[in-house]
């Protein structure tokens, strides 16, 4: 970015790129356009890689659309996968706004699922408790579990300046192993690596439950959790854009020194934001056990916590954009289960994220093609 003057190279190509720093405001449409363009270009690059290793990109693309948006049941599947991504994406959004790098949403998701399952497995409620109460308790426990898992790295960061990236990441592994112990040992269902199926009063309502009244709903697995995601998006938006706390979060993220001089308590914010972030990820874990698997088992997450990072970034940390982006990535996960080779959706996610952060340069600089 350092050179703005055209070089005196041979002019076989009589144009040059002129790069200048943006001084005026960024056009409103540009961030969305760069995100959209990033996804398109990432698909093209992934297609080229697929072609090079001997695949058929167009067939895969066609399959991708059929498997994710082709009919009502698969659209529902896509939305079911988008549900945890929304909440995890929001978890990352809150933390990243403060430049607090919570990479531990995956672990917070697992602990949230674990804590929500405690309600049923300990059990904290009697067998005939109404569904509304059981679900409410599971929501509270799930968020609490995630928040506790977020508290540790937040506290270490605030108290000892311990790099939160590594601690959150290490706690991911710890959380998964912790869950495994309970699944394999204490709550194992007849030696299988999963707990017994929860009673129906711990299931989030699904559209399929109303198939008797409305026949179009039969086999549609979409559950109430998606509303949790939408409500969470509104709440996060309100916190960030309308509350004093959100103002503090954004100020710390943009300029920690100014925040310090303004008398904002950074230490406390680090801990609280980490807990809010963890709580949202924990809620995602609760929605997944209560809405989809209905038991605690191994691998309840195919890496939602990590995909949430990309979702947040692609949405440019805008809570409502998170909803849209998570639907796209939900589709990637649905298709990724069946597309070979298996790592393709991983690869695509990596390229998308690279494209997004590279395209940010367009927000900071104006790049024009100029005739020499």
């Amino acid at each position, binding site marked *: 970015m*350092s050179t703005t003057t055209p070089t005196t190279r041979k002019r076989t190509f009589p144009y040059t790129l002129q790069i200048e720093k943006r001084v005026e405001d960024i056009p409103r449409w540009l961030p969305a356009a760069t995100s959209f363009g990033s996804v398109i270009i990432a698909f093209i690059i992934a297609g080229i890689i697929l072609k090079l290793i001997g695949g058929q990109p167009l067939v895969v693309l066609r399959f991708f659309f059929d498997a994710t948006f082709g009919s009502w049941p698969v659209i529902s599947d896509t939305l079911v996968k988008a549900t945890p991504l929304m909440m995890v994406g929001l978890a990352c959004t809150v933390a990243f706004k403060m430049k607090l790098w919570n990479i531990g949403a995956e672990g917070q998701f697992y602990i949230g699922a674990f804590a929500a399952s405690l309600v049923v497995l300990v059990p904290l409620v009697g067998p005939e408790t109404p569904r509304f109460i059981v679900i409410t308790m599971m929501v509270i426990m799930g968020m609490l579990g995630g928040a506790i898992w977020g508290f540790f790295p937040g506290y*270490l960061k605030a108290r000892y300046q311990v790099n939160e*990236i*590594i601690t959150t990441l*290490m*706690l991911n592994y710890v959380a998964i192993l912790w869950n495994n112990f309970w699944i394999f040992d204490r709550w194992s269902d007849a030696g299988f690596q999963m707990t017994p199926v929860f009673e129906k009063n711990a299931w989030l309502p699904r559209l399929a439950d109303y198939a008797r009244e409305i026949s179009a709903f039969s086999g549609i697995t979409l559950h109430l959790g998606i509303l949790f995601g939408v409500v969470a998006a509104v709440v996060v938006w309100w916190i960030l854009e309308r509350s004093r706390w959100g103002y503090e979060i954004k100020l710390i993220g943009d300029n920690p020194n100014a925040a310090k001089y303004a008398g904002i308590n950074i230490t406390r914010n680090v801990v609280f934001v980490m807990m809010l972030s963890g709580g949202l990820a924990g809620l995602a874990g609760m929605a997944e056990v209560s809405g989809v698997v209905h038991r605690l088992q191994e691998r309840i997450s195919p890496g939602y916590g990590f995909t949430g*990072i990309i979702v947040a970034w692609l949405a440019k940390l805008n809570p409502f954009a998170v909803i849209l982006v998570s639907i796209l990535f939900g589709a990637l996960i649905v298709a990724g289960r069946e597309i070979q080779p298996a*790592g393709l959706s991983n690869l695509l996610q990596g390229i998308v994220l690279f494209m997004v*952060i590279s395209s940010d340069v367009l927000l900071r600089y104006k790049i024009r093609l100029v005739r020499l």
Partner: protein
Amino acid sequence: MDPIIILHAGLATGTILLFAAIGEIFAERAGILNLGVEGMMLLGAMAGFSTSLSTGSPWVGLIVAMLAGGIISLAHGLVTIHFQADQVVSGLSLTFLGTGLALVLGEGLTGQNPPLVPSFSIPLLSQIPVIGPIFFFDHSLLVYVGYLFAPLAWYYIHRTRPGMHLRAVGEKPEAADTMGINVYRLRYMYVFVGGCLAGLAGATISLSVSPGWYSTQTTSGQGWIAVGLVIFAQWDPLRAALGGYLFGALRRGILDLQGPATLFGFRNPLFVNSNFGFFLQMMPFILTIIALVVGSRAVARKRLGAPAALGVPYIRGERGL
């Protein structure tokens, strides 16, 4: 539970962390935080393994592994050095990219048996009591390379002119630029070096220490542990090497706790119920967190360690942030 076996194994697994952590030290000393170590390692592990399989030469495998790690790290270099993107997010994308590429290209490698990097004992030195069997007996060539590499890296960074340039670029790039050092070029170079070493660390796993390709289980988070080790080591290659070995030995020792039926005269709960092993498997990650707390406190107390310009993009002609 033989201490000699534990230390011997610790040196082998520690070598993985040694290469990865010293690579990261080079990049961070130049001011570029590269969190993509896990991805570069996995790609290196896959590249080394499959190259050794197809060419029949583990040496070509090691070279290709290093190049694979180095080349993919240049994506991080481009995005952070020229596009001034956030180094944390870019590093994460590198992890995704490296992992994804490794999984796609590594399809069908599981269960194959390529030629591995040879292990041998060093004559005479391996005869020394206690020290010989730990340090010089039946180790992979890469372990011996590690012994030499850590002090050399230290010497390079602290005692040579290019090493001084490296530190200058990471501490005060404006000043380095004024002195005629090409900040951009050096940053690219050391990001590349870091990537090569991460690739080598990956190949150290797949071609030597625990041979095989087990998709993401191959590295199982060791890249991240290496990033943590850099802070623990306060950006010093020798400390990184020691930390790596210590970590490797602790890890092995903890896993060995599962073996005996009795411990210190008591019934071993880990032997009775193997599910307690999950808690043992948590230990490396918890140890990393503890090591980080210790390292971070030392850094905060001594006010040294982290390169001053770490994570800050350098824009020529503009004042730093």
